[in-house]
């Protein structure tokens, strides 16, 4: 398996960030994300990024801050380009015509920095929190919605599998690229898309089947039999 698969794995440690309550970590991720989405200014994006850098340092994981760049730069490039194009060519009705290229580049940069700050903040949460603690936290959170018919364990497992599938999809992209290269075929997004999609659907089905086979999510009456036993 590849390094992509390890990108979101827990890094054990005893730093203040590792020991911080899960709820607080979620709030920081939420605050960073809401800030950079709702207030698109260069200073705000840089400040959010600085906070995330400091938190990586406090966690003893400063070397991890730039690690996602190596794999995710195409995604950030697409985000930046999309923003730049929308600034230059897709102007709201009534706005002065003519592209302001310099301002568009700055705005695209702000979006890219903001997205990276939010992404690395979320990743830091995953790096500093053991998987079972994440599951427990999500289960407690989704428990609030039980009156609405939400099955807390099922919802928590769904989010967990979704997070786990991100590196898996990355690995599928790498393996498909290698398979294309081995056949002497040049890698293009169009050639990658279908095999990766098929592999991802297969993975989702197999994972769902495996979870069901393990009796997960389980029915409440089957839980904690040992704890309630006399």
């Amino acid at each position, binding site marked *: 398996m590849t390094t992509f698969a*390890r990108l979101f794995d827990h890094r*054990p440690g005893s730093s203040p960030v590792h020991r911080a309550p899960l709820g607080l970590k979620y709030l920081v991720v939420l605050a960073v994300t809401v800030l950079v989405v709702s207030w698109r200014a260069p200073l705000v994006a840089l400040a959010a990024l600085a906070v995330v850098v400091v938190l990586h340092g406090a966690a003893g994981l400063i070397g991890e801050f730039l690690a996602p760049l190596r794999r995710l730069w195409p995604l950030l490039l697409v985000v930046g380009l999309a923003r730049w194009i929308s600034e230059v060519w897709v102007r709201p009705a009534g706005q002065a015509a003519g592209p302001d290229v310099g301002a568009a580049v700055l705005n695209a940069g702000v979006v890219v920095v903001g997205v990276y700050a939010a992404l690395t903040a979320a990743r830091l949460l995953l790096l500093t929190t053991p998987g*079972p603690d994440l599951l427990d936290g999500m289960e407690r959170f989704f428990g609030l919605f039980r009156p609405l018919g939400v099955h807390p364990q099922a919802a928590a497992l769904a989010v967990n599998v979704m997070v*786990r599938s991100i590196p898996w999809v990355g690995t599928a992209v790498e393996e498909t690229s290698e398979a294309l290269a081995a056949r002497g075929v040049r890698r293009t997004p169009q050639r990658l898309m279908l095999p990766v999609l098929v592999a991802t659907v297969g993975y989702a089905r197999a994972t769902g089947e495996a979870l069901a*086979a*393990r*009796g997960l999510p389980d029915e409440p009456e089957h839980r904690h*039999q040992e704890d309630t036993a006399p």
Partner: protein
Amino acid sequence: MISDRLPAASAGSITFRQVGVEVPTTSPGQEQRPGSQPGTVRILEGLDLELTEARVCVIGANGSGKSTLIRLLNGLVSGSTGQVSVHGLDPAVQTAEVRAQTGFVFTNPLVQLVMPTAGEDVELSLRRTHARRAQRRSAAADLLTEFGLGGLADRSVYDLSGGQRQRLALATVLATDPVLLVADEPTTLLDLAWTLDVQQLLLSRPGIGRCRQLVYTTHDLEFAALADRCLVMDRGRVVHDAAGPDAVRWYRELVHSRRTGQD
């Protein structure tokens, strides 16, 4: 020989009564067997069995229905006709109860391991019986040690070898102490040493804890020969049913006779 070390175990009972499985065809040109509904293809038909042996093996060619048969045992597949009973429970109706006492090992352990590290995945299995995290962590550590994976609790599942992953998948399944253990080609992806290791683990399980019965599929005929009873599947039907060595001998003759055109 592995079989020399197998403990005697009193098995439960699995019954199939006229069980058939049909699924919708996905391609219009797919061969339709006589008697199946239009637009469907019959995967299994006429299964009428009572399995009481501790170790039951299912062999046959790819597409013969082996995996479908064992998926009936925990409700991953439901019969279109007939009735299945697993230790007194109907998997199609009492699915949660059946799954609570059935452990299922897949060919590829990576689809089965859904947590980042080995220890965390065992902990996931223990959530049903251990409410507190500290309890789960301690029980998971003990279980990993029991399965020879003691130093690997914090290791990413992607950093384990294929054999270690399959051993871990087995540990996550056995963490729930299942009454019935089902394994779908559990050694297909393993090298010889790990194959023998996983075979030993599986075959020795009936009689330990709550486990009373093991049902597995395999293409490894030496592994199949170690079963107390072996079913040979062909085109959705059980075409031979005997003790492991006899069934394997019969299956070898069938394959060779077909290859030489003598059938």
